[in-house]
């Protein structure tokens, strides 16, 4: 590939990827951006960010944060335990589990959620943060089981066997060998699980019944009410943690020499 072709590819790629993000950012910092202005006439400084101090948005961001954290932690525990048990099972059960986990990941949230919604209601969790958390755990556990399976599958089981041969108890194998090896992966898994919950809208609406207000729910209602500027600001806030997560992932993969 010639240098010129490479530069053209990078430019086209930058245009395709960055244009929506730049337009979103410009809308977020402009109090007014009327047709046919291509660029906003003036980007307000303080005024544009007033929406960020809106108690509704602050409360929604806090709810989203706690839900994401709890989903990440609980999903990691469930995902790693399941993957650990399944990697030692027979091939057919393993295959069934990976397909089941994949189903949890790609099953339409609303399709699996309509039944889940009534189950939550009958358990008394409908319209509660706990009910929404349990609902978020469904896709998150699917993702994190697949994630944990990839890690545990590529780990050398020889180290574990050697530790057992040298007299380490089962507990010592866990505390001295496996956990130190897996700690960074647990952290990545928590981040991944948290991100799945952070952007979740369909299950929150269905199980939360409009009572549990997360950032995506507030964003949807802002856009539907025609408040594009506050909506764009909320969209940027919603995009920041995943961007940070992606940055950490890029840093980690560069350190290990993997491609990203």
């Amino acid at each position: 590939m010639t240098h010129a072709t490479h530069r053209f590819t990078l430019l086209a790629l930058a245009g395709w990827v960055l244009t929506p993000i730049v337009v979103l950012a410009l809308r977020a910092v402009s109090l007014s951006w009327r047709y046919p202005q291509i660029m906003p006439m003036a980007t307000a400084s303080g005024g544009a960010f007033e929406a960020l101090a809106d108690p509704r948005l602050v409360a929604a961001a806090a709810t989203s944060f706690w839900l994401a954290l709890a989903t990440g932690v609980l999903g990691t525990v469930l995902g790693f335990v399941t993957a650990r048990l399944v990697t030692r099972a027979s091939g057919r059960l393993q295959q069934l589990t990976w397909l089941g986990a994949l189903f949890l990941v790609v099953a339409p949230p609303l399709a699996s959620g309509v039944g889940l919604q009534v189950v939550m209601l009958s358990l008394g969790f409908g319209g509660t943060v706990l009910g929404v958390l349990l609902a978020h755990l469904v896709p998150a556990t699917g993702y994190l089981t697949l994630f944990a399976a990839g890690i545990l599958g590529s780990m050398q089981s020889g180290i574990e066997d050697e530790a057992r041969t040298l007299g380490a108890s089962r507990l010592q194998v866990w505390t001295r060998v496996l956990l130190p090896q897996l700690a960074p992966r647990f952290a990545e898994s928590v981040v991944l699980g948290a991100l799945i919950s952070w952007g979740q809208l369909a299950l929150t609406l269905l199980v939360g019944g409009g009572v549990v207000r997360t950032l995506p729910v507030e964003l949807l209602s802002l856009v539907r009410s025609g408040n594009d500027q506050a909506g764009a600001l909320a969209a940027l806030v919603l995009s920041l943690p995943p961007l940070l997560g992606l940055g950490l992932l890029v840093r980690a993969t560069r350190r290990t020499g993997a491609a990203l």
Partner: protein
Amino acid sequence: MTRRNVAPLAAVLLIASPVIVGVAYTILAALGLRGAGASELTVRHVAAALGGWDTWRGVGWTLATAAVATAVAAAAAFTVALRVQQSPLGRLLAVLPLAVPHVAAALAALLLLSQSGWVSRLTHAAGLTPTPADFPALVYDRFGVSLVLAFAWKEFAYLVLTAVAVLGTLDRASDEVARTLGASARQVFWRITWPQLWRGTSPAVIAAFAFLIGQYEMPALLAPSTPTALPLLIYERSVDPNLLRRGEAYVVALLALTLCAGLIAAHGIWRRRLPGVTR
């Protein structure tokens, strides 16, 4: 069943239990045995949902938009991955859309592609569209143009990531042997690189397609009300003030789950055919 399979099976059942219970409830509700307005075993909801033109039109429209978006995203992802696999800046740019949640990306598409959006302003400045009404309706339109582009924008990043990973694992020795034997660069690509790239990325392409069928956030902001996208159809019916219509939501949900299960099965069969995959 062997003893070593008991604990793993229990774990699998635990993580799948919410979906198993949810699906069981959905089946009962679709048959009129549970849920709002439940009375006795009936196929009334099934007949109403499956006999309605709206449902099949929505299913067809959803499959078509998801298929076109997946094809666009995959074609763009393969092209870009082949060109930027050695460029850290290119790879970083390509995966950026992963960081933007679907609902935020849908708002960006709305700001870009609506009749008073940024693209419309550019065409106005170029003298092509004197008023917003002269710009073609790309949002809430029956062809789902903005929805397809927004879907493709999001899935592109996931498919580039997969394609770059697959390209990194390819054995380049066969390329060199083919070149030594006189194959042109084009022949090397189509006969050696492409089959391996497609084989490695096709499960991800199927997963992306299945994911788009059930995507709610983007259709909620960009899709037309007629035909109604499958996830919107489920949501609208599930909150319909007419309790009798709520039963139809469960039937449509089962239809979506069946479509999804079919794709997962296709994915499983595909994986079995891959060399080196545990059976």
